Structures are given as C-alpha cells and as structure tokens.
C-alpha cells in the first residue's frame, strides 16, 4: 500500500494498524518484516536546518511508487509492502518516510526494503526545500547514493 501524508504520522502505529488489516494474508506465512523509518535531521551540508517543505507531483508520485513496489515484488518473494511518505511543511524529528516489507524469509525482507528505499530516493518525484537557521531557503539539489554515502 502507498500513502502520501500531508500531516505528521506515527510509523509504528501505522505498521501495527496495517498488520491487523492484512492479518489474513500475512498470518502463518510471514517469517520476516523489515522496516525503514526516515526522519528529518536538524542539519544538512554543514548548516543548521530548522524546517523543510516537501513538494511532490501528485499522481506521478503514486505511479512511480507503484512501479518501484512492482519491481521489488518481481525480484523478491514479498507477501506485502507499505510505503508512507510525508509532504508539506516538516520539522526536525518529524518522520518523512516509512518503508515496511513482509516476506517468508529475512533475506528478501532486508534486500527488498533497501531496494525500495533507494529507488524511492532516485525515482519518485519529491523535492525538499530547506529553511536554514537564518531564515534563508535552499532547495536540496540531489540525494546521496545510499550505497556509498
């Protein structure tokens, strides 16, 4: 499932609620769940960051996320996956993204979760605009490669 949130969300409550909702398809089959939670820092590129606006391309965001999840499901035997991404105005310690995957075995769960997160960061149309300590705003111009940085 894919969800774009315009207000704060609690990732672990979302996972709990989703697992209850998906109980029939997961019960007895799930051997592994892997979860990634991305949170806003109060620093970036050597500067203090006091807030951020996350813009996205409604419609394309969901379409590209579906592609990413479909690609993951082709590569690994997944039982289910959940992606929630925040948009709008966010502040340090706000959760920005949740990726959770369920599978029978841990290898697929670990690898697919990582794959989905890295693909999201390079393909899904979200953009961050940071508000620095002095009030100045700047666009984040690129994401770092998670396998390198």
């Amino acid at each position, binding site marked *: 499932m894919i969800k774009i949130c315009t207000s704060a969300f609690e990732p672990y409550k979302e996972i709990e609620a989703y697992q209850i909702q998906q109980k029939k398809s997961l019960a007895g089959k799930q051997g592994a769940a892997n979860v990634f939670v*991305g949170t806003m820092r109060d620093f970036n590129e050597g500067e203090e960051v006091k807030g951020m606006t*996350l*813009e*996205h*391309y409604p*419609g*394309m965001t969901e*379409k*590209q996320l579906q592609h990413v999840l479909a690609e993951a499901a082709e590569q690994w035997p997944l039982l289910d996956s959940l992606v929630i*991404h925040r948009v709008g105005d966010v502040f340090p310690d706000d959760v*920005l*993204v949740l990726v959770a995957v369920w599978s029978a075995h841990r290898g697929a769960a670990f690898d697919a979760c990582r794959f989905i*997160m890295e693909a*999201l*960061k*390079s*393909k*899904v*149309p*979200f*953009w*961050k*605009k940071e508000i620095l300590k002095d009030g100045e705003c700047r*666009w*984040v*111009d*690129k*994401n770092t490669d998670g396998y390198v940085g």
Partner: protein
Amino acid sequence: MSIKVRYFASLKELIGQATDDCEFVSGMTVQDVWQKLLPEKSMPANILAAINMEYVSLDTLVKDADELAFFPPVTGG
C-alpha cells in the same frame, strides 16, 4: 491541439510559473517544447522530464493533449 506543461520545485521558481500550455505541432520533441516556451532560458543539464507521469528522454516525441512535466533531480526520502 495543445500540450499541458508543468514545472516543479526549483525549476518552477526559476521559471516563475507552475503550468503553461504549448500549441501542439506534429513531430515536436520534449526539448522542442522547452525551446518554444522558454527560448531565453537554457535547459538545465540535470533536468528530468515526464510525459503523462512516466519518465521520458528529451528527444521523445510529444502527442496532442499530453501532460509534459519538467523538474530537477528528485530529493525525497
């Protein structure tokens, strides 16, 4: 006969508008649309484009009534 054009993020600010319309001409590519609408602005080297919400290269032909979007590298997550 027109193409709906959308700009996002820093590109939207650079251009000063979020949307535009471009008269459709047969044989037009994505790059041609940019040059027609923004002849005074050089296209950023790292620009990305999508037609109807799917990524395309700059030499892709556009069709009448397409939604064409231009945007900078994505930075979500």
